[in-house]
């Protein structure tokens, strides 16, 4: 912090960027009859930097987040990082219809349920 103490002024010291960390993003998981919805906080991530992979039943989110930094960093509570998180997708999800959208740093991942696991009413015949 630049502070004047008489004639001696302390110049702001730049913080050294430490190693890049891998961070687990906070995720919420919701469900309704049609799908499982995963919502994750990924501030600073653009759609190009986000990779979502499904390998057998393991779903992995990976994203790179770089800060646009110009000038001397005086104080940092968050830094450049990689986001990474894996989930096991339960059987009953239709993998071909998984959809993702990233807006305002929030990822919404839709995991639609396969037709055969959707709840259905069984009609009763008088017999």
């Amino acid at each position, binding site marked *: 912090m630049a502070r004047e103490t008489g004639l001696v002024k302390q110049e702001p010291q730049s913080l050294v960027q430490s190693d890049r960390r891998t961070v687990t993003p906070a995720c919420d998981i919701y469900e*309704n009859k049609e799908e499982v919805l995963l919502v994750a906080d990924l501030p600073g991530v653009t759609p190009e930097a986000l990779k979502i992979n499904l390998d057998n039943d393991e779903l992995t989110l990976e994203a790179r987040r770089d800060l646009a930094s110009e000038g001397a*960093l005086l104080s940092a509570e968050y830094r450049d990082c990689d986001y990474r998180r894996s989930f096991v997708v339960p059987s009953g999800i239709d993998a071909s219809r998984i959809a993702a959208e990233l807006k305002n740093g929030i990822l919404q991942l839709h995991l639609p349920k396969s037709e055969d696991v959707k709840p259905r009413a069984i009609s009763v015949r008088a017999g």
Partner: protein
Amino acid sequence: MWSRWNLGWSDFDDMFSTMSQLRTYMDRVFDDTSAGRAWEGRGLSGLGGWPRANLTDTGSHISVTAEVPGLSEKDIKVSLNQDVLTLSGQRPIEAPKGYSTHRQERPSVEFSRSFSLPCRVNPEHAAAAVKNGILTVTLEKAADAMPRQISVKAA
């Protein structure tokens, strides 16, 4: 009761390695949140509060950036009083209509964080924008706080 007496050597090893894993993890957690505290922020939870913010000095401007996923310009109130910048607003979390909740990790917050700036700024030329969930507030330093060159004359 018998299980207490059955601690073999391998159990001790496991215990110590778990402890050191825990210690490494705790160090990393504290490292992440307490790096570079050159300035104070009053927050709601934990060491700094929500949202996490950085302060940058670009020479002519002071720039405050914060992680605000899910918020747009209209959700955040940015106010400046002399050399104190305040960010306030709320980021409520609700399950979408018709969905049940299996897991809730994202914090639902109402926040108000104030930052003491390292120098006086010109309130006329202050700008704030939100992009991809990152808020950037750019403040022009007051004229008397700008860095200046002192010319050295040969004696």
